[in-house]
Every structure is written in C-alpha cells, then in structure tokens.
C-alpha cells in the first residue's frame, strides 16, 4: 500500500496543475469533478492506508518513501521523502476526509462564482501542501509545506480581491504568520548548527544526547520553533490575523482556518515533542500561552455579532485548549481535541456558510433569527456542532475531548490550579457563547427573508460531519468511566503518555465541576438571550459595560496596539526615507563639484591683466617653494 504514499499529495497537486493551467477553458462540471475528485481519491487512498496501518502496523510504526534527493551540500543533505506514522496518519485522515467533504460542499457553494477554477486550484494546492507538511520527514520539506499553506491561505482569504478589505486581511494573515515562520526558520538554522541534521527522526534521536535537561540552546530552539507554531495557530500574541481571515469564503474558513492549517502549530510541537520535553521552560510557556489564549479569545467570542467572527474566536480558543494540553504534556488529549474539533468546527463553519448563503450574505447574527423551522437540517446539524463545541456531557465528541484536558490541567505533572481555572472559565465561556449563537440565530422571530435553500451537495457533508461531531467522541472515554482508549493507544505509539501527580482527588469531582460549569454557561445564555432580554438592554445602557464590550469586541485591542507600536513606525520610516538619504549625499558631492567649477570659471573672465596676475601667482608659488 505504502508505495502509493506519494499519490496522496500528488493527486491534489495534479488537480491544481490542471486547474491552474487549463482552468479557464474547462466547463464548471469538469472543474468540479477535477477539484473535488482529486481530494476524494486522496481521501480514499488515505482510508486504505489507514486500514492497512491498523491491521498490519509497519515494523517501526512508520511508512517512509524517498522520492528524490533534493539537495546536499557537505553535511547538509535534504531529500524529498514522505513518512507516515500514527500521528501524521491522523492528520492526513482529517485533511483528506474533511477536505473532501468541504470540497464537495464547495462545488455547490461556489457554484455562481466567476473564478470557480481558481478557487479549486487554490484549494487543491492547499490540500497538497498541507499533506506535505504533515508527511514531511525532514524539517525543510515541512517548512515547504508550511509556507505553501500560508500562500494558499493568503490566496483564499483574498479570493474576492476586488474589495480592498479582503486583500488587507489576506496580507495581514500572511505577514503575521510570516513573522512566526521567520522565527521558525531561525530555529531551523540554530537546530542545524547544534545538531547538524534536519531529518526529523535523527533529531528525535539526537536531541536527548545533545541537550541536557533544559540546556539554554535547546530552550531557545524550542521557543523559536514554538513562535512558528504560534503564528500559524493564531495563538497569543500572534492571533490577530485569524478573525480578519474570515473574509474568505466559508469553505475556506472551514478547511483552512478551522480544521487543518491553524492546527499545524499543534502538529509541529507534537512532532518535535522530544525537543520540547527537554526544556520545561518552553513547555510551561506553551501551557500558559494556551490557557491565556483560550480565555481571552473566548471572552471576545462572547460579544461578537458577526457569525463567522464568533466561530473564528472560538477556534482560537479551542486551539488554545490544544496548546494547553500540549504544554502540560497531555499529548494524546491535545491530538484528540484536534481530531474532534476539526469535525465540529468544520461543521459549524459550513452550516454558518449555508445560513449566510441563504440570507444573501448576511453576517450579523442579530439580523438573523427564527431559522429553527425554516431551515430544519441546517438547524439540526448546527445544533450538533454547537453542542459539541459547548461540550455537553456524554452526548458530544467535544465533551470527550475537552474533559481530559480540563482534568490534566490540574492533575498532570506540570499542570496547576491557575491553568485549571482558566480552562474551566474557558469551558463556561464556550458554553455561553455557543448557546448564545444558537438562540440568536435559530430562535426568536425571523428578521431576514431566506432567498435560496442549500442544495443536496451542501447538506450531505453537513450531515456526515454532524454525525461524527456527536458520535466521534465515543472512541475515547475518560479513564474513570468505561476505560476505552482506541485513539490514545494509537497516538501513544508516537507520543509519550501523560504523567500524573501523586495522590490526586477523584477525577469525578473535576468532571462534575466541568459539567456544572458548562450547564451554567448554557443556562446563563438562555436567561440573557431568551428569557429576559431586558437585563441585556440594561447593560447595553451602562457605559462601563459598553466599553468592556467594545474592548472585547475588538479582541482586547491587540490590533490597535500593534498598529501603534509596529505598523505606524515602519510606515513612517519608509515614508520619510522614500528618497534614499544616500542619494542626497551623492547629489551633494555633485553639487560641490558644480560649485567649484562655477567659482573657477569666474577666474576665466577674459581680462588679460588678470591672466598675467595668474602668471605672477604661479612664479610666486614656485619661488616660495624654493625658499622653503
């Protein structure tokens, strides 16, 4: 099976090539078939691969395939070769499977768009590079995929390029992620200087011998790489691009900015876990960043009015959970949360897309409402997604994936109360805003007329995702209730298991708290947005609340901060130096010469007596020289 490994990225690439070169001459159906088909085939191959992997695991748990030797200069030799182990298999599965569904959805969603071909070309290219990212067996190739997904996200955010706002959002996304990437690049240089290889397996072997626990260089490298991850995964302090990235079409948000690309950071950290394990500082930084992000983003999500921005902020916050989990060493929990999150968040985005489409591009949730009956399927699927996001106990995948994180936040070796509190608060907030979203959009009276209803090709993926969003969690149960660990035992082939503190209180207590908090969130939202809206009105009056609301609405005013601290100074410098100061220098020299020449030509005044005086001066000079 695994000799066909290369097909998985190659097929989308092929699709990209066809569409980008010949796209404008193909009919829409053909484009749709090529675009979606390539990814679906890739998905099928992945399935086959996965089955093969589960039935007959390879010797060392890794499929590898060497395609060609990329470049090699004395000790630096880099090859283009793919390798798949359990971890990357999970990612590949998500990418191809969710990707396929989203492609199918898009064939209908983008139906009337002028640049149908360009859209699918970009999407295919994205899938391809994302696959390369997760299948790369050396960091250079990984970096290739890393940059590739960045490019695609840029192209797709700015897909509707006529509106400057979109372009701006696209640029912003690219710039901010680029900052992270550059840090990561430096990390690679450093790693190479220290260890002398960029092959991931070697690194994993070398690191333990090379870095004593918490060696400075090791930490430094870890932090640099982490910066890359932060940039891609929109964590503090580089999170500001993601909400704006919603300018792209909904499927794009679903695939890139919810399911796959933004979790690349998670992948990177998990992939190089050894490196991080050896520097506690880096680990705790990850954890803290995760915790803070999940809390702050959650707060912002509570007050957003644009449906996609709500989801964007919730994405940030959910990834915050994953980082938290990684930071406290609960690797498999993090990966599992990524797994479920990919489904329900993709679902939410697609459903939101359907809603937006039906209400002719209305984004503001307060202009929606009462869609409960008019759009039945969308409502149900959305409900499933939201529930899973809110992690309603036992019936949703979200619960199964988030609950362990909450528990480990306290119980894991380097977990602590602070992290746990933030996580719990996050849980409450999550429940609150997902309920708020549901209530405002689907209950109440109708505010906007529905123009068209989503077609079959859009509904089908919704349903599939909804099912998984509900049932997907059952493959992994908490330890205290029916101990089932299909997922984590796979993951733990690659990643170490979590280490717990000694003599802990019973896990039930924490689960109980979590459940209560969640339900509390739901209830509060119910009270505020359904029972008595008056209190909300009251708050809207008070300036204090209002200012808080605005503050959160603008995502803790990070944009303003960066604008004043970085952007404006940069623009200022470039503006004042547009005409290259050095030019002035050289023009000055030229001017000097011209002036001298002007002065000298005054001496050429045609007066004979003056000329004789010149002779006199000359002889005076000569004679004086003789005297001296």
């Amino acid at each position, binding site marked *: 099976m695994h000799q066909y490994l290369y097909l998985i990225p190659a097929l989308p690439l092929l699709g990209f090539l066809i569409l980008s070169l010949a796209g404008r001459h193909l009919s829409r159906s053909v484009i749709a078939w090529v675009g979606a088909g390539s990814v679906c085939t890739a998905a099928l191959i992945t399935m086959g691969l996965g089955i093969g992997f589960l039935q007959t695991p390879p010797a060392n748990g890794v499929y590898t395939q060497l395609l060609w030797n990329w470049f090699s200069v004395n000790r630096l030799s880099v090859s283009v070769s793919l390798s798949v182990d359990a971890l990357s298999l999970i990612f590949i599965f998500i990418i191809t499977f969710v990707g396929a569904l989203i492609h199918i959805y898009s064939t209908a969603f983008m139906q009337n768009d002028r640049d149908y071909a360009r859209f699918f070309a970009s999407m295919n290219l994205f899938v391809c590079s994302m696959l390369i990212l997760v299948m790369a067996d050396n960091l250079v190739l990984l970096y290739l995929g890393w940059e590739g997904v960045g490019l695609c996200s840029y192209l797709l955010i700015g897909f509707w390029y006529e509106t400057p706002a979109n372009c701006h959002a696209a640029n912003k996304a690219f710039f901010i992620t680029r900052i992270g990437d550059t840090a990561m690049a430096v990390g690679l240089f450093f790693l190479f200087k220290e260890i002398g290889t960029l092959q991931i397996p070697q690194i994993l072997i070398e690191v333990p011998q090379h870095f004593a626990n918490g060696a400075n260089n090791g930490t430094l490298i870890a932090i640099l790489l982490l910066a890359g991850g932060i940039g891609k995964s929109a964590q503090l302090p580089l999170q500001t691009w993601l909400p704006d990235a919603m300018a792209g079409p909904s499927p794009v948000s679903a695939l890139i900015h919810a399911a796959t690309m933004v979790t690349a950071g998670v992948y990177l950290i998990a992939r190089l876990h050894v490196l991080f394990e050896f520097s506690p500082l880096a680990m705790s930084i990850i954890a803290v960043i995760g915790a803070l992000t999940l809390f702050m983003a959650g707060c912002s999500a509570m007050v957003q009015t644009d449906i996609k921005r709500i989801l964007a902020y919730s994405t940030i916050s959910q990834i915050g959970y994953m980082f938290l989990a990684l930071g406290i060493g609960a690797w498999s929990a993090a990966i599992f949360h990524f797994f479920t999150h990919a489904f329900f968040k993709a679902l939410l985005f697609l459903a939101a897309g359907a809603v937006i489409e039906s209400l002719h591009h209305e984004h503001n949730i307060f202009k929606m409402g009462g869609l409960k009956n008019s759009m039945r399927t969308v409502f149900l699927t959305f409900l499933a997604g939201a529930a899973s996001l809110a992690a309603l106990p036992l019936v949703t995948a979200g619960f199964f994936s988030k609950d362990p994180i909450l528990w480990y936040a306290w119980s894991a070796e380097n977990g602590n109360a602070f992290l746990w509190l933030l996580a719990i608060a996050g849980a409450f907030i999550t429940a609150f805003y997902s309920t708020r979203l549901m209530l405002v959009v689907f209950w109440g009276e109708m505010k906007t007329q529905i123009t068209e209803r989503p077609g079959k090709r859009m509904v089908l993926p919704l349903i599939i995702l909804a099912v998984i969003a509900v049932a997907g969690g059952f493959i992994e149960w908490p330890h205290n209730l029916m101990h089932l660990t299909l997922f984590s035992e796979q993951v733990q082939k690659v990643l170490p298991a979590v280490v717990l503190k000694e003599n802990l209180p019973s896990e039930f207590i924490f689960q109980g708290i979590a459940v209560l908090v969640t339900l509390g969130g739901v209830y509060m939202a119910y009270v505020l947005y359904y029972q008595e809206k008056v209190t909300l009105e009251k708050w809207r009056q008070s300036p204090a609340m209002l200012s808080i609301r605005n503050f959160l609405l603008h995502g803790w005013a990070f944009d303003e901060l960066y604008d004043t601290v970085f952007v404006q100074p940069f623009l200022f410098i470039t503006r004042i130096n547009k005409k290259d100061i050095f030019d002035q220098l050289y023009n000055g020299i030229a001017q000097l010469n011209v002036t001298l*020449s002007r002065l*000298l030509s005054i001496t*050429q005044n045609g007066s004979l007596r003056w*000329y004789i005086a010149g*002779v006199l*001066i000359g002889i005076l000079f*000569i004679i004086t*020289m*003789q005297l001296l």
Partner: protein
Amino acid sequence: MNELELQALLPFMVLAAASVVVILLIAFRMSHTVIQVVGFLMACLVIFSMWYVKDTLPREVPPLFIVDGFGALFTGIIIFSMMVVGLFSYIYFEEREENPKEYYILLFLATLGAALLTISRHFISLFIALEILSVSLYALIAYLRNRNNAVEAGIKYLVLAAVSSAFLLFGMALIYMDTGSMEFTAIAQKTTSSNPSVLFLVGFGIMLVAIGFKLALVPFHFWAADVYQGAPSPVGAFIATISKIGVFAVLLRFAQTVNLQHNSLAIAVLSAIAMASMIVGNLLALRQQNIKRLVAYSSIAHFGYLMVAFLPGNAAGLEAAAFYLMAYSVTLLSVFGVITILSTRVKDAEGLAIYKGLFHTRPLLTCVLTISLLSLAGIPLTAGFVAKFFILAAGVQQQLWLPVIVLVLTSVIGLYYYLRIVTTLFSTPAPGTNNTPKTLHPFFYVSTYIALVAMTLVLCWLGVFPQALVDGIREFLLIH
C-alpha cells in the same frame, strides 16, 4: 660642421625649405589648391627624408642640436599632426574671406619651430625655436583678423607669450650664470656633481613659467580657453597638439639630461602643478557649453596627466608619455577635424547646441567624435585607455600615490562632461538644426573624411593592439 651633420638635419632643412617654397608659390600667384598640394608633398618629403636619415642616427650637431631617436619620434608626431592640420585648413580657409596663402608659410614655420625644439640641446636653440613657434603662432591665431575676436586672442597670446619668454630668458640667464654653459650636458656635468645650487633651481623655476605657459599648466593656463576659442579651428588643433608636443619634448630632454627628477624640490613643484592642472582643468570643463573652450580645458587636464608620466623620469615614464602624446594628438586632431567640418562659413561650430542629435544627421561624424571623446575619457577599446593605463602604471611603479589618486578621481569628474557631449550627440535633434553637408571642393571633403575615419580606426586599433606602437616607441627611444 660636416656633411654628415647636415644630412642629419636634412628633414628640418626640408621643412624650412617648405616655407620658402610656399613663398615662391605665392610669388608666382599659384592657387590655394596648388599650395595645399605642394605643402602636402613637402610634408611627405620630410617624412621620407627622416626615414632616409634614420639609420645614421643618432648624430650630434654641436653645439646646438642632437638628432636622436627621441627627436625623430617627436618630430614624426609633429609632422604627422601638421599634415592633418593642413588638410583641415584647406576646407576651413577656402570659404573664409581671408586670402589663405600666407597661412601656409606660417604653418610651416611654426612646425619648424616645434620640430627644432625636439632636437635642441642648447638654450640658444631652445629659445630661438620656441620663438619661431610662438611668433608664427601670434600671426596664425590672429589670422582671420576680422572675425570671432581673432585679434583679441592674438594680443592676449602675444603679451602672455612675451612675458613668459622674458621669464624663460631670465631663468636661462641665471642657470648660465651658475653653470657657465648653456648646453644641457655641460649643465648636467656641473650640477650632478653636487646637488644643484640655489641659482640653478631658481633659474629652472623661472624657466618653468614659460614651459607651463606653453603647455597651459595651472596656473599659467588662463590663455588657453580664450585662444582656442578665438583662433581658427585648425590653428586651435595646431596649438593643442604640435606646439605642446614640441615644448614637452624639450622639457623631457632637459629633465632627462640634468636628471631633474632626482631633485625632490623640483618633483614637489612639478607634482603640485600637475595635480592643480588635473583638478582645475576638469572642473573648468565641467559646465562648459562651448566645445572649443571645453577642449581647451580638457587639454589642460590632459597635460596634467602627462606630467604624472613625466614625474618618474624613467624609461617607463618616457614611453608612457610618448604613447600618451600620440594617442592624445590623434584624438584631438579628429575632434578638431569634426569641428572644422561642421563649421559653417559664418561661424565655427562651437556651441554645443549645434551638436544636438547629430547622430541622426551625420552618423559618421558622430561616431568619430564619440570615439574620440571616449578615448579622451580613457575608455577601453580606444587608445586613450591604454595611454592612461601606461601613465598609471608609470605612476604606480614609482609609488607617486598622491598624483595617481588625483588622476583617478579627476578623470572620473572628467567622464561627466565627455558623456555630456556624447549624450547630446545621441539625443533627439532640436527642430530646425539641419547642418547640410558642404558642396564646395568635394575632393578635400572626401579626403578629410577619410583622414578622420582613418584616425578613428587607428584609435581603436591602438586601443586593442598597442603592442606594435609600444615596440616602435621603444625602438626609437633606444637610439641615443
């Protein structure tokens, strides 16, 4: 003085005879064309006689002259330049109001003066030759006495030249007083024994005024621009090349004989003058709009460069100087040739405006002028580059870093105004400026064009294969 000595002097006698012949022709009312042709033939005769006597060289003609390879070489350059100038003179004067016949007498006399300078080894001959040169030049400059301020140029040159020759004489007198002889070798014997006495140095310093004046070195350069502008174009060419070559030759010979370059003071003075000339010349030319004046200034700078080659006072310097003079004279002659051809009956082609967009109307002339200018700027593929390279080599070898650096920097400044002209040539022509080719006396036009093209080709050839010329120069310089 025996017939061998006479034989050695043969070329110069022929040259002198030429002027007499011209007088006779005038007496017999011969036409301009005849005079021109005969003059040309006489010049050829000079060349032949030089080939004829070449094998018998070197030969001393005590006490005044020594006819050696050095002299022969520079005389050769002078005669060649004279022929070209004569060629230009025809088309130039044919359409001027003046009767051009006396012109040729003076031309030959001036050439004779310059030629005698190259072989003189005695103050008396030096002085007289110099005076023959300058006296004829006074007349030549003011020849077209009714137009473009020729007379003004003439009087300026005359007064300054007279003053400078007074200085020359005074300096000579001092040296004579000091050494008791006016013959270079004798002087050398007196001076080399001890380090030269004060009187000698003062004398040389005062003589330097005259030399500097003739070579238009700063600060004796003021006359140059005015005279070039006022004089007829061929005469301008004559001043720029022949007279300077002659004077430089005698300066070289004097310095070589009394090996001046071993005297730090002289070196200091000379290098100061050289640097000043390079800087001032180039700066003056920087904004100049009148091409004649521009050439004048640039030639100031060029003799500054030449002094750099003079300073080392070794064989390399000598070769470099000789090569440079050749390249320089060919280049300047072609520039003046273009000016002459473009000059209309009414006015010489001075203003840069005339040259705007010349490429569209006169591509051939433009190429000639462009290549000449590039050669002056010292750009490869032209003789000027190789020449400048030799000079730099001579300077670097002697580690005269200061003059060499100044040379480099100033020639970068110089680049600007040469490029300015070139760009003007190739820019789009100003409407209404159509300089129609002249129709008179086609034969001389054709021959002038041929001469110009030939010289341009020579420039390029020397720029790519200088070896032959270098060998030639060495061969000549070995004869002493």
